[in-house]
């Protein structure tokens, strides 16, 4: 049976239809989204990350944080995300307007991070947690990231940045653990993650 051209047409159409339906049409619908001005603060939402947080985003990307962490809050009636305090409302498309790439994630080996900047605003906590998650979260299976830090001899005086580590996690005598720029940038990025702003399409509480 040699109906090659017809088969080819069929393959083309079925495929083209899904390409149009699932990528082109969404682009038409969502490509026009703009920021929303927030009454209370007068600022635009969402804000593109810049400076230290933007660099921290690159660390998040390079070290594959998405393979354990999601950044999307599901609706209050679909899972326990809102009940867990992971967000006051579900995430919507506009929250990701400036993200390149979008870090939605598909695994929750670790908690969702869409609002981690609000949930855990302590720079020190994050630095220690990144250095060795066991310190702040015993039993965690998140890998330690010692390579984001520098173990060095204490100079004339201890660095103000040095992590306050005790017990088995403390560095050897005379040494200190100081975060590298990547660690600080990553934490700045994490602290920028906050989306608890009401939008017309997403009121709080849902």
């Amino acid at each position, binding site marked *: 049976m040699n*109906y090659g051209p017809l088969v080819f047409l*069929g393959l083309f159409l079925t495929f083209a239809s899904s390409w149009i339906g699932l990528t082109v049409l969404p682009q*038409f*619908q969502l490509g026009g989204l703009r920021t929303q001005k927030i009454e209370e603060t007068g600022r635009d939402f969402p804000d593109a990350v810049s400076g230290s947080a933007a660099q921290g985003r690159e660390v998040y990307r390079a070290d594959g944080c998405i393979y354990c962490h999601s950044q999307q809050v599901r609706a209050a009636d679909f899972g326990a995300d809102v009940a867990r305090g992971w967000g006051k409302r579900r995430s919507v498309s506009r929250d990701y307007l400036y993200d390149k790439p979008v870090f939605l994630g598909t695994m929750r080996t670790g908690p969702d991070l869409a609002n981690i900047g609000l949930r855990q605003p302590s720079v020190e906590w994050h630095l220690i947690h990144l250095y060795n998650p066991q310190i702040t979260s015993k039993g965690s299976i998140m890998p330690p990231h010692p390579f984001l830090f520098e173990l060095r001899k204490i100079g004339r005086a201890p660095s103000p940045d040095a992590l306050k580590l005790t017990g088995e996690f403390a560095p050897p005598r005379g040494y200190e653990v100081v975060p590298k720029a990547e660690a600080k940038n990553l934490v700045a990025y994490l602290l920028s993650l906050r989306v608890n702003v009401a939008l017309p399409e997403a009121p709080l509480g849902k």
Partner: protein
Amino acid sequence: MLLYLIILAGSFFLLTGSALLALRWALQDGQLRNSEKAALLVFDEEEPLGEVTDAFPGAKADPTNLRKPGSLP
């Protein structure tokens, strides 16, 4: 929003419609006749129908499977 639904619904019906039309054409044109012959395309003179063609090394093919060559198992 409505526009997208129209485009989508439209393309759905268009696609399904053309698929069904193509199927009707194929049936009328006899494309799907003799399909059982096509199923025999994996066999030929060298490896005919009825012949088992794989075995563990050093072993015979299923010894219970010997039959007149060319006949269906």
